[in-house]
């Protein structure tokens, strides 16, 4: 059992005329086996939360705490966080020219496990996971994210989640830019990981459509850098009907 505990998290970014506060006190606990959906309008700070948890240098934590099983996540480097069991599926995965997918996956797996994977089972695992995500085997010899379509990038992110087996995974708008078929394939991948591990999921999304495929246990509405309302899956249905307007209208 793992627990990611976010408490009173305030995060700023540097802008031209000083610093701008984006997260204004986020409290959230994600446990193994739970699926949390974070929904909210553009600019509400959803992605900032994702990148702050992963440790992107652009985001500066000004107060609050984040712990994973009691360990101080904010004190860890980016790679230490990943090795501790955090995973971020990125909205805009980065191209790494000249580094093949297969080399990248093996290097990451070796780093996460602290030893290189056994060759025979590893090759089988990679092939199996790629087949499940309807990825052509020759994909493994392409350079990381170079020339990938939007759908290929997202499938590649989920492929990594399947192979790296994180304790807590944050999916940052994994559904954006996907057509219905790709969304279904990606969602199946996420559900496979849920079914075969006790991963805790933090699903960040603008739209409700991915929640038709991945059922959340909790829904949090994110507005202006903090959680404005929380509920069960029924809250997502209500958002689908009403949109975010009622959160944006000044009281």
């Amino acid at each position, binding site marked *: 059992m793992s627990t990611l505990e976010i408490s009173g998290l305030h995060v700023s970014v540097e802008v031209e005329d000083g610093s701008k506060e984006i997260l204004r006190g986020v409290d959230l606990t994600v446990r193994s086996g739970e699926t949390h959906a974070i929904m909210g309008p553009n600019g509400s700070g959803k992605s900032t939360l994702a990148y702050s948890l*992963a*440790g*992107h*240098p652009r985001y500066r934590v000004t107060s609050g705490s984040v712990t994973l099983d009691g360990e101080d996540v904010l004190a860890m*480097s*980016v*790679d230490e*966080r*990943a*090795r501790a069991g955090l*995973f*971020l599926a*990125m909205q805009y*995965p*980065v*191209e*790494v*020219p*000249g*580094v093949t997918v297969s*080399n*990248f996956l093996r*290097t*990451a797996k070796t*780093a*996460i496990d602290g030893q290189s994977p056994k060759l025979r089972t590893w090759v089988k695992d990679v092939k199996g996971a790629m087949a499940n995500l309807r990825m052509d085997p020759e994909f493994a010899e392409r*350079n*990381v994210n170079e020339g990938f379509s939007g759908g290929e990038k997202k499938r590649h992110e989920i492929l*990594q989640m399947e192979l*790296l087996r994180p304790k807590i995974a944050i999916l940052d708008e994994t559904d954006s830019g996907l057509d219905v078929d790709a969304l279904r394939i990606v969602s199946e991948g996420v559900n496979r990981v849920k079914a075969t591990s006790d991963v805790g999921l933090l699903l960040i999304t603008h739209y409700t459509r991915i929640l038709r495929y991945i059922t959340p246990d909790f829904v949090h509405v994110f507005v202006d850098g903090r959680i404005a309302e929380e509920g069960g899956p029924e809250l997502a249905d209500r958002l689908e009907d009403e949109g975010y307007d009622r959160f944006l209208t000044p009281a």
Partner: protein
Amino acid sequence: MSLLADKTQGPVLVGAHTDSGAAFVPDQSRAERKRSYAVADFTVPNGREEDWRFTPVDRLRPLFEVGPDDRDGVTVTADTPDGVTVSHGTPGSVGLGVGIPADRASAVAWESASVMTSLAVAPGAAPAEPAVLRVTGHDKARLNGHLAISAGAHSRSVVVVAHAGSVRCGANVEIDVEDGAELTLVSVQEWDDDSLHVAQHDARIGRDASLRHIVVTLGGAIVRISTNVLYSGTGGSFEGLGVYFADAGQHLEHRLFVDHEPPNCRSDVAYKGALQGDGAHTVWVGDVLIRASAGGTNTYELNRNLVLTDGARADSVPNLEIETGQIEGAGHASATGRFDDEQLFYLQARGIPEDTARRLVVRGFFASIVQRIGVPEIVERIMAAIDRELGATPQTEADG
């Protein structure tokens, strides 16, 4: 930002991509630059000349004056497969008849050379193994090199010239690729840190012949390699690939001049360099001339530089001179950028420690060029040499 993006984004562009017209125009055309076998026709460079303006000429003094070889200080060994012969003779007045010195250092080397080493690939031969020449110097030995490589008609071969040790080396390399021949020539510079090496390569590419000319420069205090290419028939092809890695205090300079005169020839030049450490300096100058007669020419040149630390400087100057509109294509690209922190973040977010992630990114940067060499044992050798360079990668402010 991707380092392979066509436009440079990001913070650094140190003296990069200067269009020649904006800077200094020594001649009406690149073709008019002086060529002569006579040392007296070239004054000792003072660093203000167009072709020496990036070079620390004061440190190259020994190579600007005629002097004898230090024969005991240099060893040359050759591994030759069937179909390739190596012999040593005197240069005569015109050597192989392909090269003519284009600067003081080349003329000095030409006049001073007592031995011309000839490597000949027999016509029609296709040796299974590369021919390898190893040049090793000791204690800053003076070497006036003259190497004449001829690839006989319709032959197909790979030649590697590997340089190591400590030298003061001025050299001329003549490369004759006869009609229909395919030659891959790899020149590897893994000199000691005190070596000086100034070389001129002249290549003549015959009808329907192709030359893949690969330059790998990793070691040496100052290395300057000028490569001049011309075509003696139609359908010729030149592929010029280069990788270089400059550490603190190293000056690594690569100059190319591709002269398209016959029609329907192609040239494709791609050089990539990395720099790390205080005073690391690289220079890349790529001149391409498409003469009025060279209809149907297709040419492209590319230079990318990856600046890994502060205090390093990369100069990159592509020049394209076109005298006919009847061409297939002509283009160039140059970009100098810093290490991409987003790539680093992505790799680290998958658990990969920072030093490993840096190594992956830099290897990847070079891999696209090195893979094109296509000779597995050479690819492995070069990547291993790059790995050794990366072993010394200093940590940067990103850690702080």
